[in-house]
């Protein structure tokens, strides 16, 4: 997501440190590149201009020019300024007691409101809340059905003890222009229904609209005055261009928005909106959406994003994600198995599955310091992990416990059963073996040697070979149908 921006920024700033003596004009020169990097990342042009000037002033004030490590100091300054641009923010959903808390979603067409409603519902379900989604997009054909299906999916498949339902009046849908205003009534009844059913949080999914469409903006104000939402979220596509600030300002002026949710953050957008919207409108970003699944929603933390931009990684988020997936007991257990070299294929696959639930591999790797920039142009194909899982699931229990059993004919059978080929199975076997050895070694040495091994791993890293992955254009064995099912499941 931020790879390109962070690569350029760090490159430019590091260059500064390569010089003996730094002058004011050196600092200014380096900002030319920074300015371009920010513009290429869709940061609003006026924000870019201000930002660069602030950084130069800070740099001169901090006497970067006489510093021994000017590059590092510059990075520190830029880091702080980035944090200031995006923060401060209290992320999460503020809940009222007694409920229901009413949350209203709004945004341009196609920004991802309905999908985000599902994600918020999943987020709240995990926190034990009873959630009702109200289908107030009566414009786009089948938007109501989309929300109904989503609510159902989250209710059945998301983790947590909460409950998710959908309130809809599908008969009220109309062609463009004809149903304007009707959404106000639907929302009002949706909230009433929620009160009666002792729902904790009501989320109103409104139709997408342009901020200059007076008729439709009036409808939103109608919804607002009829339901008095506790929070209004503006959903913004992270790939949005310079117009982000115009759109966000318009919605904010009319509705007093409480927070922005940035979607499609898993794309390779450089996230300029994240850097512009708060500065121009004062509205903080509360969440980011990082995938199509309902669990792909993260709280937004400016410090963490700033450090990702500067290639310093985001270990805090990584650890948090890991804590969600692994209990301490699991961790103990697996560490012990690794140390003793008794890890089985089943253990490995379980771990792999937990890791994959944390998010797309590339975004996870990107949270490690320095790795984001290194991975900029590398394709990390998550589908290859499907193949590894398929290989493992074609093994018998015995084989999983003792991979040494695998001779030619067994390997052939496994390849056939998993829709892969023998050389892939072989590679997996070899790598599994190597990993076992390595983990034993790492566990044996002290912390220092562990770090050394990690560094080797990262230094010579070819993520593709790391996970036994073949690159793009590898043998296609899985039918699209299978592939599709997998995508659906994710």
């Amino acid at each position, binding site marked *: 997501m931020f790879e390109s921006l962070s690569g350029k920024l760090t490159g430019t700033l590091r260059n500064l440190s390569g010089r003996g003596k730094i002058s004011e004009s050196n600092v200014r020169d380096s900002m030319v590149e920074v300015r371009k990097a920010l513009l290429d990342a869709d940061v609003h042009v006026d924000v870019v201009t201000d930002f660069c000037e602030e950084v130069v002033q800070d740099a001169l004030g901090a006497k970067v020019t006489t510093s021994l490590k000017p590059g590092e100091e510059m990075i520190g300054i830029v880091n702080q300024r980035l944090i200031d641009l995006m923060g401060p923010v209290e992320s999460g959903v503020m809940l009222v007691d007694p409920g229901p808390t009413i949350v209203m979603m709004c945004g*341009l067409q196609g920004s*991802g409101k309905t999908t985000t409603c599902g994600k918020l519902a999943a987020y709240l379900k995990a926190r034990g809340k009873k959630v009702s989604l109200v289908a107030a997009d009566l414009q786009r054909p089948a938007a109501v059905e*989309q929300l109904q299906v989503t609510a159902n999916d989250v209710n059945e498949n998301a983790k947590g003890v909460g409950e998710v339902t959908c309130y809809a009046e599908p008969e009220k849908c109309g062609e463009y222009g004809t149903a304007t205003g009707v959404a106000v009534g639907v929302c009002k009844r949706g909230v009433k229904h929620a009160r009666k059913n002792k729902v904790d949080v009501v989320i109103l999914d409104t139709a997408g609209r342009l901020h*200059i469409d007076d008729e439709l903006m009036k409808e939103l104000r109608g919804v607002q005055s009829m339901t008095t939402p506790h929070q209004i979220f503006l959903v913004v596509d992270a790939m*949005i261009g*310079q117009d982000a600030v115009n759109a966000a300002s318009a919605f904010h002026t009319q509705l007093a928005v409480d927070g922005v949710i940035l979607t499609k953050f898993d794309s390779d957008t450089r996230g300029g909106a994240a850097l512009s919207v708060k500065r121009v409108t004062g509205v903080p970003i509360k969440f980011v959406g990082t995938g199509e699944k309902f669990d792909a929603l993260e709280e937004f933390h400016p410090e963490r994003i700033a450090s990702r931009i500067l290639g310093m990684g985001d270990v805090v988020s990584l650890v948090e994600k890991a804590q969600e997936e692994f209990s301490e007991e699991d961790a103990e257990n697996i560490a012990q198995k690794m140390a003793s070299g008794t890890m089985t294929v089943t253990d490995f696959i379980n771990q792999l599955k937990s890791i994959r639930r944390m998010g797309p591999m590339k975004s996870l790797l990107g949270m490690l310091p320095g790795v984001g920039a290194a991975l900029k142009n590398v394709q990390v194909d998550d589908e290859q992990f499907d193949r590894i899982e398929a290989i493992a699931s074609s093994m018998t229990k015995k084989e999983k416990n003792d991979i040494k059993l695998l001779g030619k004919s067994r390997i052939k059978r496994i390849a056939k059963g998993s829709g892969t080929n023998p050389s892939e199975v072989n590679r997996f076997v070899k790598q599994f073996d190597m990993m076992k050895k390595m983990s034993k070694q790492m566990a044996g040495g002290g912390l220092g040697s562990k770090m050394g091994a990690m560094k080797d791993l990262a230094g010579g890293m070819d993520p593709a070979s790391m996970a036994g992955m073949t690159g*793009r254009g590898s043998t296609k064995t899985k039918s*699209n149908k299978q592939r*599709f099912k997998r995508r659906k499941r994710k």
Partner: protein
Amino acid sequence: MGLFRATVNALRSGLSRTRSALATPLAAMRGRTIDNDSINELERLLLSSDVGTTTTDAIVNELRDAVSRGEKQNRDILELLHDQLVNRLANKKRTLAIAERSPTVILVAGVNGVGKTTSVAKIGRALREENRSVLLAAADTFRAGAVSQLATWSERLGIEIIKGQQGADPAAVTFDAAEAAIARSADVLLIDTAGRLHTQEPLMRQLEKIKQVTSKKVDGAPHEVLLVLDATQGQNTLVQAKRFSEAIDVTGIFLAKLDGTARGGIVFAIEDEIGIPVKLIGIGERPEDVEPFDPEVFVDALINEAVS
């Protein structure tokens, strides 16, 4: 294809309904002659309409050179800019391809939420207005409600549709649709696909597969591969255009959502650097809100407050 033989007047009225964020500040510059101050202001305005650093630099440098050569000082800076921009879009074939033997197959792709399904409905309607028989293929079997969305358009517009079940293999749906198009001797088969990020390798491969399926069934298909881009998006659309082109050889761009305040300035870079022509634009949510792309009108709408 003689698609959309709309008159220039109709075009202008269409785009004049829209407002450009850039137009008002630019209007203030009308009549100003070219000097360093006005060039700097111009630079800011181009950047603020997503034209991007590379194209903006090229334009601005050209103007600066002109100034230092002592040329063009007396010319209205807006007129100069207008000419420059139109020139950058000149000489491109922007009509939709048509197959020698029906059906003409049009594949529509793009990232999530850019406007693919709506655009398919728009193109379908426009073709039908030209008395062509159209068949829609609902090959977005992934997003909840996507098939129903296109089915609703098919009903409202009275255009036939082939749909798969939610969760079905999109390549299989495409296959069935291609067979149906041949069997019913449809003039045009329009395929709507699921949104996907260009960074999602497996999904890009799925799209390649869908494309292959059409060419196996119909000679020379797909005759047109349209990439739908969202005019409100910024520099990332350039990357989208690159990646989709590599995967499925995009032949034209449908630029949707030009009815907002965003102006799709990235089009210059796309045409320049990747060479894909913009063929159609979307200017609203209704099926009739579509027009052929006309560089003059586009540039007018970009830099003028009101299109006269």
